[in-house]
């Protein structure tokens, strides 16, 4: 209690608690510090994952073994997938920006269970460490791909167990974050903030949290079954003992498809925050965005089969899943319509976060529309397991979640660190990144349609041209990433200090608290009367 006075006027970055030095961070239950812990962990592993990706693209710059052989390539795409999916994009936006801004945006002092929140981060780190041991211990790094498809995943001599178990532990972390967010949103909204006065980023976090709660246990049990299969030979996925490997695919995608919405929904939330602020206009169709968020969360649970169109499902299952997949495209398209309509006749303020948000819409459209090509049966069979798929999900996962992450980082950076980044470098980084990104992934669509399969270190000479463009694009994109991160890291430490509460003119609550926020965010919990995007037109 003696600190409570302190907690109202000292920034969370300077606050002196019970611990000092590193311990003041890794044992802190402050949601803002936990958010930054996730951010630093993710940036570290994103760098690793990006370098792995760069190595793969370099391997593909010419046919044949360029810098590595098949074994190394298989290990690389497996580790790249595990890192990027389980360590970066699944926790991604909720763990970093959700933790940091959800309580502030709904007018709370912290999440509902701060200690549980810290436990989530610890489980996350422990999960990462377990995954990493798979690379160094035993019989070589796993080569199954991040999907761990049966029966190969329990037959390969490679060290699959720690990778699977690490993913299981990270799933636990994800579930706890989800529980925390749902309870926080239900119980801790500021007085007057009714459900439909809640900003859209918390809304998307709410939908995401429900998927985290209801889908993650599915991957938990599936991975445990793989462990049991490997250790005990229970036969559940082993065709030699009567098991059905396609059932593994069902279970895996019952989680992993909703997981795509865990990745993308909060990204849509971020974009829905940024677009109105930089258009100086109320968001168009607030309720439509909310309802489409919940619709995506719900329908997205039942479309998993579109990953298995060539696996040997029954015909009826095929067209059921195809139909459901088309259904889920509708709410996504509604959102794009809302964002574009918000910008229409707005007074646009062209700043870095807005560049990221607009380019998000562009790449998300490409990713989404090519998703329809994959959702319809006939075209899917043609491009299944080709580079077309690789291009599609990078446009969605990297183009969607990744761009939204960058947008969020540039949007909230001054609030988080109390310093401003260099806008010139930030814009330059964005431009180079955007060019490199499209040069990298766009040719993959064409390569896939020509028939270049994914997950091979080698290819026919016919595919050489597209691969050269793609590989060069990878180098351009990495240069962009280096500029962006160098600028942000430098600015976080030496950038121009700012205490300006509201640099962009936002209307949500995080722009009304101190910069950087104090330990308890609000001196007095505000009472909400107006909707979240009241620009007073």
């Amino acid at each position, binding site marked *: 209690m003696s600190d409570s006075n302190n907690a109202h006027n000292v920034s969370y970055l300077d606050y002196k608690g019970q611990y000092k030095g590193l311990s003041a961070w890794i044992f802190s239950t402050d949601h803002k510090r936990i958010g930054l812990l996730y951010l630093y962990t993710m940036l570290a592993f994103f760098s690793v994952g990006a370098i792995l990706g760069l190595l793969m693209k370099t391997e593909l710059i010419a046919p044949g073994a360029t810098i590595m052989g098949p074994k190394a390539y298989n290990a690389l795409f497996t580790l790249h997938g595990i890192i990027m999916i389980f360590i970066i994009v699944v926790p991604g936006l909720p763990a970093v920006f959700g933790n940091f801004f959800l309580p502030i945006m709904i007018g709370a002092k912290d999440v509902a269970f701060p200690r549980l929140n810290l436990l989530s981060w610890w489980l996350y780190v422990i999960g990462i460490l377990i995954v990493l041991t798979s690379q160094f211990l035993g019989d070589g790094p796993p080569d199954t791909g991040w999907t761990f498809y049966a029966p190969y995943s329990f037959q390969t001599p490679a060290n699959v167990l720690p990778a699977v178990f690490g993913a299981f532990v990270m799933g636990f972390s994800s579930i706890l974050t989800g529980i925390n967010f749902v309870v926080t949103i*239900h119980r801790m909204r500021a007085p007057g903030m009714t459900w439909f006065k809640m900003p859209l980023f918390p809304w998307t976090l709410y939908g995401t949290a429900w998927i985290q709660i209801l889908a993650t246990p599915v991957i938990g049990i599936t991975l445990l079954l793989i462990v049991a299969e490997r250790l005990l030979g229970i036969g*559940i996925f082993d065709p030699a*003992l009567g098991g059905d490997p396609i059932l593994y695919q069902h279970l895996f995608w019952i989680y992993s498809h909703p997981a795509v919405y865990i990745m993308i929904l909060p990204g849509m939330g971020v974009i829905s925050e940024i677009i109105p602020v930089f258009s100086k206009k109320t968001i168009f169709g607030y309720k439509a965005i909310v309802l489409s968020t919940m619709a995506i969360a719900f329908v997205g649970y039942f479309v998993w089969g579109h990953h298995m169109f060539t696996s040997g499902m029954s015909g009826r299952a095929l067209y059921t899943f195809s139909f459901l997949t088309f259904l889920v495209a509708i709410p996504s398209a509604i959102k794009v319509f809302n964002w574009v309509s918000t910008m229409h006749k707005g007074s646009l303020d062209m700043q870095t976060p807005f560049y990221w948000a607009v380019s998000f819409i562009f790449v998300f459209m490409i990713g989404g529309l090519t998703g329809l090509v994959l959702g319809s049966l006939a075209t899917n069979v043609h491009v299944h397991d080709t580079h077309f798929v690789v291009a599609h999900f990078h446009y969605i996962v990297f183009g969607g979640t990744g761009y939204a992450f960058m947008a969020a980082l540039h949007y909230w950076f001054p609030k988080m660190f109390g310093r401003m980044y260099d806008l010139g470098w930030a814009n330059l980084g964005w431009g180079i990144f955007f060019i490199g990104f499209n040069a990298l992934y766009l040719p993959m669509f064409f390569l896939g349609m020509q028939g270049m399969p994914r997950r091979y270190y080698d290819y026919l000479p016919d595919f050489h041209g597209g691969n050269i463009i793609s590989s060069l694009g990878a180098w351009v994109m990495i240069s962009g990433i280096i500029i962006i991160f160098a600028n942000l890291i430098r600015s976080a430490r030496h950038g121009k200090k700012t205490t300006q509460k509201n640099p962009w003119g936002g209307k949500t609550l995080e722009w009304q608290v101190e910069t950087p926020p104090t330990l308890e965010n609000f001196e007095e919990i505000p009472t909400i009367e107006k909707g979240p995007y009241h620009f007073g037109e």
Partner: protein
Amino acid sequence: MIEHRDDLASKMGMWLFIFTELLLFGMLFVVYAVYRSMHPEAFKLASEELDVVLGTFNTVILLISSMTVAMSITSIQKGNKKLAMTLLIITLVIAVVFLVNKYFEWGSKFEYGFNPGGEELLQLGHGTILFFGLYFVMTGIHAIHILIGVGLFIYVLLQLRKDKIHQTDYIWLENTGLYWHLVDLIWIFLFPLLYLIH
């Protein structure tokens, strides 16, 4: 920081956790449903290998333990700490008895070589192998949950003794109770699906 207590939030958190558990076991039931639909006869025959008397006995004591833990919440609400502790100890004992029974049940299966990868089992058809694979996985994960329950009961008992849990602050007991009912709930479905196939 000012501690604030919100029991309803804690309870809501516990329910959300229960949902994750329901879906975790739920997926095992999906696997069960798929394989039973493929091998109905083999599942029926394999099920007859299980000891219905032992299974019924475990069902009955687990239901009783659900009642005792629910009653211990009633007693703490009425301020009767001693009764609450007694009821919890009864629950704890039942949990252990359940595990001991399970140990003997599993033991006899191992003796006959019906364990996963066991020699006898591999001689039999696919349906039987899958049934016993599922039997061990489902009852095994259920038993792990019972074990966690035992740990929780010990913790709650210690907290009760130290008066950390009392008439106006018993959310830990309440949530432990919810967890225990979940374990019971899962068993209510496991029992007929594994032991009583006809």
